[in-house]
């Protein structure tokens, strides 16, 4: 099996300030696969929580526009996950 590549996959950080924000995110998971980094799963999210999740490049536009549409504060922590994976090996062999 070929190893999974994460080209241009993104990690979002979203600040959920009210119930509506939480339900917007929950609704998004009905149609888009999100890999939750923090908290561990969608059912753990709550109001006032900062949520980190990974999403494919393809779906990241939908995520971004939905968040903007509902005025949910977000930042993109990682723009290209594959690049970040390669960057973690930043120590040369001794």
């Amino acid at each position, binding site marked *: 099996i070929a190893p*999974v590549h994460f080209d241009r996959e993104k990690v979002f950080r979203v600040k959920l300030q009210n119930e509506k924000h939480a339900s917007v995110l929950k609704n998004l998971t009905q149609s888009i696969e999100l890999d939750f980094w*923090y908290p561990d799963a969608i059912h*753990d999210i709550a109001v006032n929580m900062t949520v980190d999740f990974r999403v494919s490049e393809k779906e990241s536009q939908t995520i971004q526009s939905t968040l903007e549409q509902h005025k949910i504060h977000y930042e993109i922590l990682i723009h290209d996950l594959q690049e970040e*994976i390669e960057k973690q*090996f930043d120590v040369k062999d001794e």
Partner: protein
Amino acid sequence: IAGRHSYAKYNDWDKIVSWTEKMLEKHPEMVSRIKIGSTVEDNPLYVLKIGKKDGERKAIFMDCGIHAREWISPAFCQWFVYQATKSYGKNKIMTKLLDRMNFYVLPVFNVDGYIWSWTQDRMWRKNRSRNQNSTCIGTDLNRNFDVSWDSSPNTNKPCLNVYRGPAPESEKETKAVTNFIRSHLNSIKAYITFHSYSQMLLIPYGYTFKLPPNHQDLLKVARIATDALSTRYETRYIYGPIASTIYKTSGSSLDWVYDLGIKHTFAFELRDKGKSGFLLPESRIKPTCKETMLSVKFIAKYILKNTS
């Protein structure tokens, strides 16, 4: 041929196995390797016992790498073994600790998942066991312990990253660890598990908002331990019970060990706070390990002095 093991780099499973052998050769009087079981894919689960071999002593059980993608965690366990053995006879505190206590260190709990995260999917979290009636693979080992195991309906689907498994202790890895801890219940006085990320030191409980009887005691230890950690690089950790500090979780190792009777249990969520998340650069391994070591040494000193 596996390349050289390095404490400043992430090491794959083959390198970690060779490293355990090297530790045995280098410190035969202080290190022994115990095979506590094997995984679904028939990889060995090794615990390194550090400390004097004669007589029974108080012990601390530590595990790393229960979640495959949290690579900084196994890196810390290796660092701990290295520093403990290297500083014995040189550092006063470590010498005292190792004269009077044993440390059981499980450097990689979820070996199959860890291998998978190196070879196939860097973002893998669960183990690699097959699930009946599902094509989805794996169980979240930190939802598989027999403590409030079935209280969350949100962990019962095999395709979830937090799937609890078909039954408590259904997984070979969980079973191996629980059997080992049960059989050493008299000597193990504390349990520490290492995760990433978010910079937290967590104490029981996760499955309830109720506080354990020695909550104040645990909170004090956590406070001083995080203070000790911050003295090195001013890294800020928050601390507190799992349920109120992060969110409710069921079936976790921390709660299971506590309810079994080991009343000092701690879970570290190591660096960072999200900038790199699970992909902490190797250049951060040493600083992370150095500061965490201060914390763990404080906890060990406390256990030595305050448990019977």
